């Protein structure tokens, strides 16, 4: 492991990679601050650029964008009460009241230090947990992988949005259907191409991500007459106040950060859960654990109430890398995008990744520390100025998002069919978004589609067409029981909510 850490450090500390982390953090912060435009859009816009670099650098850049976007989301939650991403909604509960009391600078500093501590602690957990889990996951067989993918897809649907399980499952099926277009990986038989040569190789992953996120996000903003930059114009550079945290506040943070980082990391590891659930759980847990007098301050600018969700959402980001790096199965929409990008580099993440490509495995983990430090020293003093940059009018922002999306697709294929296909998918996605059909399950399913078919093929061939493989191994049964429990829990939650 020491050798791996050194390889990772050497790769992550190269000038190019540090520069990429800085660019990623900065760009991610800007996109993350815009309400509605989250880490997935930011990463999607970056993918075509990452293909110009080696895989380690590309992944480091995307990880930087991810952290930056989560941090940016917290900033807009605190300053504007407009969370950029769902994972930072809980941050606004106490961050915004604090800003209204003239302590916006302090709130930003607490958020930044908590994010830093949460991210750093969880990167340490990841450092120790990932290699062990990789060793365990070597014992996984095709039926286990197939069951694990069913679990991941069901979980992301169950956790995606309240009462929208069936809609999310429909999106999962649509994602798998899109992934089935093109040549069958074993027999090379073309499927669903309708004799169109452009579809023979299937639909590009970048195209699906760009159209369902970046492009449809831009179209939704226009369609709904939203102005994500309007709120940024309200930010005053002079009213932020001091960024110093006093001894009493530090004392509160010392107690909150370790427990919130553990809960955040563990929730992040679970497929489908992620930063949103982690931040709400950490907020709720903290409220139950503090003294009564502190409990009264929750919702009115509590230091614990701000520190807990901020620590947890960053810890969850690191946690979500665990299933991706060790099992090759992403736990969230954002890591699904990263997995797709890695597959584009010709690298298959999974239990053997840290043996076959140790520089990628370890440099990503090491770059997380560097990313956290950069976020702290670069973003904290620059936040008010970044907020001002966001006051760019919508009339310029939207065409530029469209420009980066279309250019990203064009430079990858030099084919105008892909542009038409992208527009078509984006229009459908925009319409579906209007009616609350979630897009992350579609992306996760699209990325997992090929792997899922491959593992089902192997399982069925080995069991001679019998579905007994689902209950032949204890591990497969355990995973499937977990899936059933998630579905039952979701049904129970829906009905109990209706009764109440």
């Amino acid at each position: 492991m020491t050798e791996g850490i050194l390889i990772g450090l050497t790769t992550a500390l190269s000038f190019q990679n540090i520069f990429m982390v800085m660019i990623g953090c900065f760009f991610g912060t800007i996109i993350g601050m815009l309400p509605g435009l989250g880490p997935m859009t930011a990463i999607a816009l970056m993918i075509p650029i990452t293909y110009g670099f080696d895989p380690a650098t590309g992944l480091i850049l995307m990880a930087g964008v991810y952290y930056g976007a989560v941090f940016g989301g917290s900033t807009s939650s605190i300053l504007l009460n407009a969370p950029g991403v769902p994972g930072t909604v809980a941050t606004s509960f106490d961050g915004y009241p604090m800003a209204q009391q003239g302590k916006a600078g302090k709130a930003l500093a607490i958020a930044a230090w908590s994010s830093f501590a949460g991210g750093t602690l969880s990167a340490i957990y990841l450092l120790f947990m990932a290699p062990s889990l990789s060793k365990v996951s070597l014992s996984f067989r095709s039926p286990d992988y197939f069951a694990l993918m069913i679990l991941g897809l069901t979980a992301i649907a169950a956790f995606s949005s309240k009462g929208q399980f069936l809609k999310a499952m429909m999106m999962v099926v649509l994602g798998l259907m899109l992934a089935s277009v093109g040549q069958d990986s074993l027999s090379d038989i073309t499927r669903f191409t309708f004799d169109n040569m452009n579809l023979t190789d299937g639909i590009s992953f970048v195209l699906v991500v760009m159209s369902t996120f970046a492009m449809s996000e831009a179209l939704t903003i226009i369609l709904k007459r939203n102005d994500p930059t309007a709120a940024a114009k309200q930010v005053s550079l002079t009213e932020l106040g001091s960024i110093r945290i006093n001894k009493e506040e530090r004392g509160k943070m010392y107690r909150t950060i370790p427990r919130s980082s553990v809960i955040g990391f563990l929730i992040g590891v679970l497929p489908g859960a992620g930063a949103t659930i982690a931040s709400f759980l950490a907020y709720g847990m903290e409220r139950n654990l503090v003294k009564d007098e502190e409990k009264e301050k929750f919702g009115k600018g509590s230091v614990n109430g701000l520190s807990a969700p901020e620590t947890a959402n960053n810890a969850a980001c690191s946690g979500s890398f665990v299933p991706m790096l060790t099992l090759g199965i992403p736990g969230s929409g954002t890591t699904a995008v990263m997995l797709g990008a890695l597959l584009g580099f010709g690298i298959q993440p999974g239990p053997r990744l840290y043996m076959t490509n140790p520089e990628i495995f370890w440099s990503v983990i090491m770059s997380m520390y560097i990313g956290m430090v950069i976020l702290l020293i670069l973003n904290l003093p620059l936040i008010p100025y970044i907020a001002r940059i966001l006051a760019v009018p919508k009339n310029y922002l939207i065409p530029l998002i469209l420009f980066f999306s279309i250019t990203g697709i064009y430079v990858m294929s030099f084919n105008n069919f892909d542009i038409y296909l992208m527009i078509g998918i984006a229009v459908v996605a925009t319409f579906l978004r209007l009616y609350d059909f979630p897009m992350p399950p579609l992306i996760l399913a699209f990325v997992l589609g090929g792997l899922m078919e491959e593992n089902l093929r192997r399982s069925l061939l080995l069991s001679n067409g019998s579905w007994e493989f689902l209950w032949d191994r204890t591990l497969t049964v355990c995973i499937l029981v977990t899936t059933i429990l998630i579905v039952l829990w979701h049904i129970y939650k829906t009905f109990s909510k209706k009764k109440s």
Partner: protein
Amino acid sequence: MNINTTKIISLLFFIFSAFYLYTAYQIQVFAFDENAPFNARTFPIYLGYAGLFFSGLKLILPDPDTIKVEHRTLEYKKTALLILIAIIYGATILKVGYFLTTSIFLFASYYFLGERRWVLMFLLSFPFVAGFMYLLHGVLEIYLRDPFLKSIGVMG
């Protein structure tokens, strides 16, 4: 009459799944693969049934939390214009080239979204695209075919 659009989407998805399933059954597999436990059409067939199952459930189950969209407040005109510009962009990019089509695409998008600061619109289209093109072509060495720039002798 109150039409539940979510149900209509579910119905469309149901029809789409049925079509997908029909097409899945039409996939030609090799003769020796026809009775194999798994062939090229197996997974799509399962997907087709899954699509029918979930959209069917959505159709028949009550939907008390249905999303109501106020269509009168939506900006259809500008959205349609942007989509149209993007289609025209796709149709012309190979013939005209990256620089001119992209610059015009950006300029037109700013204009149709209501921008009228001509100098800023120009700066954020033609020089901006030129700079971006230099980054792609000159720095990242991604070749961009451009008949227009070639015809005026800027590109080799």
